[in-house]
C-alpha cells in the first residue's frame, strides 16, 4: 500500500507500518488536556487580575488555537508517523509540520527500551526506543499498541544480542 502512493521524499520509500489507530485518540487527549490547562491558567489570571482589554482577546484566541491543534495535529501526525524494522535496520518517520526520518542499523544498536507513560497506558499504547553509540542517533517509535511493542522489543533484543563489539 505504501508503494502505491508517491513517498514524501522522492527516492526514499515510506516505512511499511503505520502506528496504532489508538495513538490518534491519545494525541487528541493530550492536546486537549494541554489546551484546557492553558485556558484554565488564563481564566485564573483573569479572575485574579480582572478582565482587561487584552485578556478578552487572548482567551478566545487561545481556545481557537487549542481546538485547531487538538483537531488537526493528531490526524496529521497519524498520516506522518510510520515505522519499519528489517533484519538490517530500524527505519522510522515522525513529526507533523516538520518531519524526521531516522535510520539506524541493527548491528549498531546498543540498548532497546520501552517506556509507557500514564497517558499511554490508559490508551493501551507503548513506545520503543533504540539507542546507538551516537548520542544523536536514537530512534523512537511512538504510538505502538502494546502487543506490537512487546513483540518488537523481543525481536530487537534478540537481534542486537547477536552483534559483537561495542558498536561504535
Amino acid at each position, binding site marked *: 500500500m505504501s*508503494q502505491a502512493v508517491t*513517498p*514524501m*521524499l*522522492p*527516492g*526514499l*520509500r515510506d516505512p511499511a507500518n503505520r502506528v496504532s489507530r489508538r495513538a490518534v485518540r491519545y494525541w487528541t487527549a493530550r492536546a486537549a488536556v494541554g489546551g484546557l490547562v492553558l485556558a484554565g491558567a488564563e481564566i485564573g489570571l483573569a479572575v485574579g487580575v480582572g478582565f482587561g482589554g487584552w485578556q478578552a482577546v487572548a482567551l478566545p484566541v487561545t481556545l481557537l488555537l487549542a481546538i485547531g491543534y487538538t483537531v488537526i495535529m493528531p490526524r496529521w501526525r497519524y498520516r506522518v508517523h510510520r515505522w519499519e524494522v*528489517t533484519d*538490517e*535496520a530500524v*527505519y522510522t518517520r515522525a513529526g507533523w*509540520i*516538520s*518531519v*524526521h*526520518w*531516522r*535510520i*539506524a*542499523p541493527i548491528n*549498531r544498536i546498543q540498548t532497546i527500551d520501552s517506556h509507557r507513560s500514564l497517558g499511554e497506558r490508559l490508551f493501551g499504547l507503548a513506545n520503543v526506543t533504540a539507542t*546507538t*553509540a*551516537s*548520542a*544523536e*542517533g536514537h*530512534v523512537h517509535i511512538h504510538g505502538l499498541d502494546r502487543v506490537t511493542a512487546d513483540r518488537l522489543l523481543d525481536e530487537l533484543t534478540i537481534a542486537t544480542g547477536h552483534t559483537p563489539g*561495542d*558498536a*561504535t
Partner: protein
Amino acid sequence: MTAVDGAVARAEPADSGWRWLSPRSLVVRPVTDLIRLVPVLAGVLFFGSSHGFGGYWTVVFAGLAILTSIVRWCTTRYRITAERIYLRHGLFSTKVLSVPRDRVRSVDLTAHLVYRLLGLRRVSVGTGRSDRRGGGSLHLDALLLADAEGLRGLLLADVSPVAGALAAAAENGEAGQAGAAAPAAGIELARLRPGWIRFAPFTMTGLVIAGVVLGSTAQIVNDLRVDPANIAPVYHLVVRFDALSAGGRALSGAASVLVLLVLLSVAGYIALFWGFRLVRLGDALRVSRGLLTTRTTTIDIRRLRGAEFSEPLLLRLVGGARCLAITTGLRVGEGAEHGGSLLLPAAPRPVARQVTAAVLATTGRAGGAARQLVTGDLVRHGPAARRRRYVRALAGALVLIAGGGLAWWARVVPAWAFAVMLVLLPLAAALAADRYRSLGHLLSDGWLITRTGSLVRRRCVLSTDGIIGWRIHQSWFQRRQGLVSLAATTAAGHQHYVAHDIPAADAIALASAATTPLMTPFLTSAPATP
C-alpha cells in the same frame, strides 16, 4: 624503559595488587589551599581581622577540605589486572569503579603547578563511553610521574604495542617536560611556533579568562574586606575617569577593555598551549601542551573517525584556523580547548590544513588524497539554500528591529537607538551571504565532508565507516522548496554531522552512496532483493 618494566612487574600479581595513590598527593590539597589563602592571611595580618568572619570561614573550609582529601587518600586504592582496571574509594560505602582494559581509548596525564613541583601527575583513563555520561572515565589523582608514565605505557600497550613502547621511550627522554627540546620518538606532526601567539587575541580565550580573573579578584577583595576605592592607584584612576566627558569615558573604557582582553588572551594562549606538540607514536597521536599546567593526551588512531578544520569568524579574518579530532571517547564542543580533542590551537591556516591532512592520513584510509579532503572544492547547496540563509537572517533582524521600533514608539529608547538598529539589516545580509558561502558537502572515497557555519565555520571530514545511522529532517518551509537537512550520526565528536538544506534527491543519493548496504532496502528504485 624502567618505568614500564616497573609497572608491568607490579601489575603481574593480578589478584592481590591493590595499590595506593602516591602519598605525595596528600600534600597537594594543603599546598593549593595555602596558596589560595595567602591573600586572606595577608589581609588578616596587615589589615587586622576585626571586620568580620569571612577570613575565618575561609580557613575553616580549607581545613575541612584538607581533612576530606586525607580521608579520600586513605580510602582510595587502585588495581590493574590482566583484564580490568579497578578504582576503589569511599569511607562508609565503598564504591568500586572498573574499566575493561580493551575499552581504554585514551590516557591523559595532567598536572598543574603544584603537581609538577611535587613530581605528580593526574591520570585520566578515557573509555569509548565517556562522551555520553561523565561516568565513563576513571581518574587516578595523583600518581608519581614515573608510575603515571608506566601506567600509561602499560595501558597503551594494550591499544598499540608500538605506541606503548615509543611512549615510554619518549617520556624517559623528555623527563616529563612537555615540549622540551629532547629528541622525540615518533613522527612530529606539529609544534607550536612563537609566531602563532599573534592569533591569540582573535580567540575567545581572553573573555573566558577575564571572567575567571574578575570572579577571583572579587572574591579576594571580598575576603580582604577592603573597599577597592580606598586603594590609592585605583582611586586616582576612578577620579580621572570621572573627569572625562561621556565620549571620552566610552572611548577610554572600550580601549582599556580591549587592551585587557588582548593581554589576557595572549597570556591564556601561552599558558594553555606553550610547548604544544602533536606527535604520532605508532598507532596513537600524542598531544602535549601547557606552561604551568601540563597536559598530555593520547588518542588511539583506530578510534579516530575524522578531523574537523575549524575557523571561528575572528580567526578566519586574520587567516587562522584550528584543528580538532573526531574520535570516539573524547568530547568535542564547548571547552574543546580544555578537552582532549584539540589537535592544533589557533595557527596559520596553511599549517592547520597541513596538520588536518596529516592527521587524516594517519588513519591509512585517506590514500594520497588527504590534502584534497581538507582543501578540495565542495558541492554547493544551490539557490534555494541561499534564499533560506537570507530569509532566516533578515527575518531575525526584522524581528529585532520591530522590537526596537515598538520600544521607540513606547518612548523607552530614543530615536537614534532605533536608527542604529537599522545597521542590523546589512549585517544580517552579510551573515547570510557568508553562511551560504560556507555551506558545502562532498562524498569522496569513503569520507563524508560537511562544511557549515559563519561565526564558527567548520569543515568536518568524517570517515563513512564511522557513520552509524542517518537522520533526515524536513521543516514545512524546506518541504515547499524540496530541501532537507541530512545528518550522519556517529559515536565520535559532535555525534552528528549535518549537511543543511540540500535538495531531497541529493540527500538520498548521498546517504545511499555513503552507506549502500544500509540504505538500499529503503530506496524506491531499489532492485527487489539482492
